[in-house]
């Protein structure tokens, strides 16, 4: 399966246009997030690389990267959210998404619906605020300060 074949299949199923350069990049609406992950896994992209988020101030972008290591095909899927919106968890499809979604929740405050154990992972459980949001300044102490 080549990248352009894959892009064609995604276009056929979801109607989203893909950018094909080194990887295949595609932006999906939040409602298609989980079905896209399942679709890609069924297509043979069974390697979960990472899931993270970028804070663009007025919107959050969540992205995940899946790969097929044998055929050297990688797909990055993007989803644009409002800072208060929730996303569906894909931890049931890719096991590695479990911890990565917890990290995104911990750092950006994005909640994942259907996650089996959504709680902070790197920061203490009683921590306030979401450190990787752009509004979170570096030079200020946050409670509880230890």
């Amino acid at each position: 399966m080549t990248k352009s074949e894959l892009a064609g299949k995604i276009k056929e199923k979801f109607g989203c246009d893909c950018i094909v350069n080194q990887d295949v990049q595609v932006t999906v609406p939040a409602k298609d997030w989980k079905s896209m992950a399942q679709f890609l896994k069924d297509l043979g992209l069974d390697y979960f690389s990472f899931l993270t988020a970028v804070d663009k101030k007025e919107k959050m972008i969540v992205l995940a990267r899946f790969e097929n290591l044998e055929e050297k095909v990688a797909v990055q899927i993007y989803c644009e959210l409002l800072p208060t919106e929730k996303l569906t968890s894909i931890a049931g499809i890719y096991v590695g998404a479990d911890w990565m979604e917890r990290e995104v929740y911990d750092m950006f405050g994005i909640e994942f619906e259907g996650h089996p154990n959504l709680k902070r992972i790197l920061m203490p459980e009683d921590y306030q605020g979401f450190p990787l949001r752009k509004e979170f300044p570096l030079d200020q102490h946050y409670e509880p300060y230890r």
Partner: protein
Amino acid sequence: MTSTMSLTAEEFHPLQTQVEQEGNTLLINMGPQHPSTHGVLRIVLKLKGEEVVYAEPVIGYLHRGFEKLAENLTYIQIVPLADRMDYISPVTNELAYCLAVEKLMKIEVPKRAAYLRVLTSELQRVASHLVWLGTYGLDLGGALGGGSTLFLYCFREREIILDLFEELTGARMMYNFNQIGGVRYQPPDGFALRVRGMIRKLDQAISEYQQILEENYVFQVRTRNIGVLPLELGKSVGAEGPVLRGSGFRYDLRKNEPYCRYEDFQFEIPTGEKGDCFDRAKVRIIEMKESLKLVWQALEGLPEGAISSRPAVRVAQAVKPVEGEVYARIESPRGELGVFLVSDGSAKPFRLKWRAPSFSNLALLPHLVVGHKLADIMAILGSLDPVFGEVDR
């Protein structure tokens, strides 16, 4: 496999009684201060007799906010910070970061610099695997030649490599050797001679350790059929490096997606068969020997010329990549180390995601330990080789 079971808030609390009887299971907190957790890791365990029924690793004790800090530092200031992520193999971290910035700015690196990068990465891989081997000996306990024997042997050999690094960069651990566009230092006179001497010595020593371990009955009993990783689970979690190769999957970024002119070099990728702790150990030991070969070839083929395509930058503001995003990755001693970098055209990165192999490998732990005995947790954890600087970032 883990069940869908999770802990209640009360059970999860660290000040909860260390041992609690509830039905037939026993709740135990392992760590965060525990001699064989390779750093600060707490595992909340549910035991039935001596068998593990549920395990939940608790991480974050070493969190230093690297990704937040990186957004507030200039591109050049991040290089020494990246050293402190995986402190067992600093050089590969800098390399991953520098490659990401170079990819974004489309900077070509001189051939000599690329070879020096290969040379240092492979020296680092040997040093890093030696630390793993030594501590793995400690994890498995006294049966391997009196506890700390293997540990001291390995640290003695690692010392030779650290001396070479000190000669090259002036530092024993946090080298700051790579820079955007190349490397910082030319090798001193006689460096090649001393590296070759080291290779001869280590090649022999590693063969000896291989023999000590693989023919050792106790080592075999402790590691064979323990923590078997099915390939499918490994891929689904995102495990990488020796952990995935131990399960028989021949995948190495140095071969599959060569960077830094790895395509010029001849080397083998060892793989295991079953994916148990023994296979992962075997893969790492053979990898050390392959790395020594690579170091030799890098010395043989080292071309003359410049070591950096950019002048040594004294004004930190000088690096300003165009707007865009990039994902660069390398094969660090622990697996695929990826750097996802988003730039908004300013002198500081907009977002830097550190895709750490230790983090993904450690995520396997709750799946691997279930059904094994409590004492096997150390054997399994050690075989995943996590470094907590990188897990917690």
